[in-house]
């Protein structure tokens, strides 16, 4: 009986001002669809990875604004909902090969970060629960490593940029920093480079070609080799 009750529970939501009753088990994206909307904008992976469905909502008689990804948030009774179709944002253009991993690069390409008033509004708006203000501060200090790590889980939904009173686009600053970090600051994978050299020297080609021949001519032999290969994953 309890299961029955859960199935039938409905909540009242207001989609862009219009009232709809929808099942309580839906997320916001599915609630829109249940109500009859078909998405072209404000939709993407539906799995919390692409930032397309940045959402702003309020509850009746509550002054506070709330933020979420529509695909990752359950509907609640009394939600006033909208999904952002687009976020206008400045992105610097650069040739990564010509940049130096100096902290000042961030200020040169995104000078507006100096306008940060440390109000923390960006952090409150982040549906990924990132410390956005802290990483903007790291950007001002030129701490590429700290900024890269703090911003790593960013899905670039743009809510921070839309809320920033200093008109900073935190997520693009984070993107630049992470690329600088990955290319110049993080230690290089020497074993990968060594393997690439071996491949260029055609070290494995003969064996690969022999196996390809077996696929066509003696697949049973190849199956035996496959089954007998040593498994070392511990």
């Amino acid at each position, binding site marked *: 009986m*309890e299961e029955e009750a859960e199935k039938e529970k409905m909540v009242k939501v207001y989609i862009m001002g219009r009232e709809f009753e929808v099942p309580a088990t839906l997320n916001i994206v599915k609630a829109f669809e249940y109500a009859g909307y078909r998405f072209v904008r404000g939709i*993407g992976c*539906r799995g919390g990875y*692409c930032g397309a469905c940045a959402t702003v909502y309020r509850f009746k008689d509550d002054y506070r604004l709330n933020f979420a990804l529509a695909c990752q948030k359950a509907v609640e009774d009394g939600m006033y909902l909208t999904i952002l179709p687009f976020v206008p944002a400045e992105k610097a253009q650069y040739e990564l090969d010509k940049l130096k991993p100096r902290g000042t690069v961030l200020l040169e390409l995104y000078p507006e970060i100096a306008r940060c008033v440390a109000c923390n509004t960006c952090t409150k708006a982040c549906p990924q629960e990132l410390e956005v203000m802290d990483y903007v501060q790291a950007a001002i200090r030129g701490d590429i490593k700290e900024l890269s790590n703090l911003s790593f889980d960013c899905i670039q939904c743009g809510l921070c940029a839309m809320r920033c009173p200093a008109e900073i686009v935190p997520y693009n600053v984070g993107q630049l920093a992470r690329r600088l970090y990955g290319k110049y600051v993080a230690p290089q994978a020497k074993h990968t480079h060594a393997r690439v050299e071996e491949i260029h020297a055609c070290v494995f080609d003969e064996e*690969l070609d022999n*196996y390809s021949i077996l696929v066509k001519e003696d697949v049973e032999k*190849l199956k035996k080799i496959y089954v007998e290969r040593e498994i*070392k994953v511990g």
Partner: protein
Amino acid sequence: MERGYPDYMLESIELVKQTRERRLKEIPELMTLEEREAILRQYHPDYKEGGKRTVKVGVNAGEPMPHEAADLIEAYPLIEPEQIDLSTIDYDSDILIIGAGGAGLTAALWAVNSGADVDQILMVTKLRMGDSNSKMSQGGIQAADCEDDNPVLHYLDVIGGGHFTNDPELVKWLVREAPMIIKWHEELGIMYDKDEEGCMFVAPGGGTCRKRMHSCKDYTGMEIVRVLMDEALNLDIPTLEFTSAVELLMDDAGKVAGAVLWDMEKEDYFIARAKATLMATGGFGRLHIQEFATTNHYGATADGLVMANRVGARIIDMDSVQYHPTGSSYPEQIVGLLCTEKLRGRGAQPVNKYGEEFVYPLEPRDVESAALIRECAKGNGLVTPTGMPGVWLDTPLIDILHGEGTIEKEFSAMSLKYKRFDIDMTQDPIFVYPTLHFQNGGIVINERTGVVGVPGLFASGETTGGVHGKNRLMGNSILDYCVYGRRMGIYATEYVKNATVGKLNLDHVTKYTKLLEDAGGIPRTRKAPILLPEYRGERTISHALALLG
């Protein structure tokens, strides 16, 4: 924190906790090839009676496919050829790339690297740049770049995992170029997980004989794609967003010569002429084969297969569909979403409602999925309040094995996903069931990504077949779009140097329409490509149970 499970599920979790210590030591054995074959035949959805049929029209007549895919192949075009004005060329370029996910972006960047004029490239995507399954992949990318590993072992894993049905030539280039891709990514600034010496963190995956999975926490695809996008924006690669290809164009010499584009917002068409047309449209998860929930992006509707089929491209291995063993099955709001295989790579175990293990955690995906389905069929799973079946994936084992904080550090995406619904996966297991994940088969290409038998057309990524045979291993889909996206960019650039385009036509569309009419029994209302799935109201397929009770 509240525990976001109903009481009867919490009771089962207590049983899971009681066996945890024992299960740390006693892991089920790998199946033999014969046992794998037997469980697949009995429990894998591919073998389910009535799930597929053979296509009856066109160049792929006789190919077995799931009904949902066959319906798209046996469907009428969206356009009426005689209504389309081919005399006005809206976009004229050397290279037209259809799709801006992993394969499309990689091809665009390598076309530029290979000397293509940036302004002679046009990339179109029906949603935003980067929108793709590529962006959603979590666990990692395989590359045999560690000392105790090599491309030959990688080759064996790929071809054994694919049950020896793969195109060996495509497998060879896949494994051979994998380390180069990792190196290129490093140069682009992609932040792979490494130690202080620069040594890559590697994990095992289902069916691998070495630890070979490179990752960027559990955001691997997102990290790669956002960097590819950043680079495409830096290079100013001409891109049309919210613009889908709906039909390929041919010229009078029988070559593919661009596409009819459809503006998704303005509902207007455009003619894009090109010397080379690159298909990077991704897979078919949003067709919900056999009504399965899916991990896939909203746009995964197999448009590329539909268009390529009408110009005569061969399509293979569509009868095998990849179900990822562990999709979320609870809570309802996230049903079908991916729980990365890396969880099992780091020690999480599938466990039934009594707290008993029932399968080696890292069998190839099809085998692992079949084992989960069997366990539920035996009545050893649970059913959620909205009717979804499943078993437990015992995630707290990861922190026990590798130290407290490991889940938070390595699986921040996954733990946030569950935290949003009051589930702490470091303390409680998560509830999972197989979910529709990947199109194993697709368009037949050669090792230079040329579509076999169709000059002027190239393809790479999930829309193609052959690389993975009838089953793909974890970490080889990112690798696939990187290796073959790159090759597509390189070889298309080479091709256009000496290519010309003749007079445009849509005769193939007219001919295909005639074939459909002659075949009979195909409803006029069935049209393809579908571009986006339809979820409005009661047609919500993946949640039919929740909506219809």
